[in-house]
């Protein structure tokens, strides 16, 4: 039972982490609370649905984040850039954007549930005679790679340095000759691309339809609220924590109860915590 809880918990945490990473980067860099983030996850899943029959599952998983990043770039240039560093405005703007994206997908692809097959079937042994679905292992590995990859990119690459500089003080970065709009656009595209990756990876296990994004947004927000907006390491840790707590209640007892427990504890933590909601950014 314990092994199952840990494995299932990490699998839930992996999905939370994949969807929370993009949200936290976008907030960290440009102060945008992106309520359309779940819709980017949904777009990633649709990219998987549409690309998988054409190019196969693995190339589709590789392409989906690029497609969604490109959409993110377009959205940033046309809408998001007017909403930088104004959380309230950005919430209203992206809430509207979410509705527009959902309805566009509804018009183009219709309301029906879509099907994506499992790229890998089979199970891995956890020892103690326990088995675990292989695709959930892929999710966990992907989340770790994405999290660590993003952290290294921010810490070591030239673009990462610019992103961090812009995060600390956009005006100074600009005065030092950095192309701040380009840095912002890059960060937004990366955030959208991560959501797209999450969507492509969950599509084989989830039901793909225009309204699927909301549950991912809510999950990502839970993590980000606990971790503090803008902290990648904390986001990864809290994702795992929330996943494990969910599984610890849901596996032996009940999913409804698990939700009650997780949200009650989250509420208590947020209420009792002295430090401000927004952590030191990125």
């Amino acid at each position, binding site marked *: 039972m314990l092994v199952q809880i840990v494995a299932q918990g990490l699998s839930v945490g992996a999905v939370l982490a994949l969807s929370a990473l993009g949200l936290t980067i976008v907030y960290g860099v440009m102060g945008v609370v992106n*309520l359309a983030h779940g819709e980017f996850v949904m777009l990633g899943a649709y990219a998987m649905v549409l690309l998988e029959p054409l190019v196969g599952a693995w190339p589709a998983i590789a392409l989906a984040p690029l497609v969604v990043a490109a959409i993110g770039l377009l959205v940033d240039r046309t809408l998001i850039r007017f909403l930088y560093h104004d959380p309230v405005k950005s919430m209203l703007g992206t809430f509207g954007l979410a509705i527009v994206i959902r309805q566009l997908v509804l018009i183009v692809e219709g*309301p029906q549930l879509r099907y994506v097959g499992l790229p890998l079937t*089979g*199970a891995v042994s956890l020892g103690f005679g326990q*088995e675990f*679905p292989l695709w*959930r292992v892929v999710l966990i590995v992907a989340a770790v790679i994405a999290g660590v990859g993003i952290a290294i990119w921010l810490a070591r690459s030239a673009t990462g340095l610019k992103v961090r500089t812009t995060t600390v003080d956009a005006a100074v970065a600009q005065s030092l000759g950095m192309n701040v709009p380009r840095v912002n656009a890059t960060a937004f595209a990366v955030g959208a691309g991560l959501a797209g990756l999450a969507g492509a990876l969950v599509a084989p296990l989830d039901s793909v339809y225009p309204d699927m994004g909301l549950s991912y*947004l809510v999950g990502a927000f839970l993590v980000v609220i606990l971790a503090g907006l803008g902290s990648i390491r904390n986001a990864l840790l809290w994702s795992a924590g929330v996943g494990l707590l969910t599984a610890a209640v*849901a*596996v032996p007892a009940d999913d409804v109860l698990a939700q009650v427990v997780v949200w009650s504890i989250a509420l208590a933590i947020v209420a009792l915590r002295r430090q401000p909601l927004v952590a030191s950014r990125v």
Partner: protein
Amino acid sequence: MASQDPTRRDVLKRAGAAAIGTTAVGSILSACGSTGTSSTASTTNAAATTGGGDTIKVGVLFSLSGDLSIAETSMKNATMLAIDEINARGGVGGRKLEPVVEDYASDFSVVVQKARKLVNDDRVAATIGCYASASRKAVLPVYEQGNAVLLYPTFYEGLECSTNVIYTSLVANQHLTDTTDWMVRNAGKKIYMVGSDYVGPQTYNAIVKKLAEQQGATVIANRFFPLTQTEFGSALSDIKAANPDLIWNTIVGAGIPAFLKQYQAAGFTPEQTPIFSGICTEQELAAVGGAAAKGHYFPASYFETIRTPDNTSFVQRYQERFGSAQPTNMPMQASYTSAYLLAAAIEKAGDATPAAILQAFPGVSAHAPGEGTVTVKDNHHTTHTVSLGRANDRALYDVVVRFAPRDPDPFPPSIVPASKIPSCPRREAS
């Protein structure tokens, strides 16, 4: 009951959005306001006559846009097909049926306005319509206060018996009794139950649990999930550990494909642990895909795959009119049959006023394609013959066994204590 429950889902969705900091207060208010209690003052038009006598107006009330439109558009189409066929053979008592089609756009406040329009303005003789239980509950006051007639063509959980509604599809006792019996005898006595957390699945699972236990089976768990949940890994881990003979499933809507795909990913097979679903028509199954759907069971009064001459002809007529890619299923067939039941009731009444139609309905029969004769009973529900289907690799159900016809009982003694069984039909206290 149907497969989705948008009112609830929308409320959850909007509540979720509000919880994360947006101002969706207006939406929540409107969503709550939509769930009924909208009583008009116009209680005086009990004798809604149908005008000059040339035609008989029939309301056709379905969602032709929005979330529910896939299912309900096909139900509207099937209703229209039947109305046209009835008119082609000369109508009813020399008068043609005149359909008044209204789209309620998957919105349970719009459905009330549209029902009011049909009852109070158009003064239709009867309405065929509604899909999710929430839509039926929403329009109930309109039909009861206007003393109008609603034919409800969707299988549902029961526990209702309005004077003004004729329930033309399956009610839970018909849907579940023989299926549970067959399931326990053929698939095993150790049952794990899952379902979505609202009235339909709760009622379905309670009935199946009771019936299965009477057969000597053990229900080792009865788990419910929030309606929007599509992550079932925890439950599947627990199911794996419990190792049941079969899974009874009333997860609805978007949860169904996710549950079946995750079941497959977790290494379950239908040979070892088959799933029997209470609320999973061919429409949901299509999204699962043949590979993951194959081998699972669903009981229904109609399947497209039924190979009888009348059904072959029904499918052909439907597809000739609406396109060869259009599948048929139980709610559609019940919508089609509803129009014939209505025609028979008007014929029997010799009068197309709602009051006369209501009085004439008990005892009225019609032929249901692929199923046989169905009859409306005194309790306003309809006799049906249920078959158990097993999904093939095209995500359609093949008939495994056809049960004997069964009478409807909206208040089955298995879950309703004898002292609490109301007279039926009766007005709901509203």
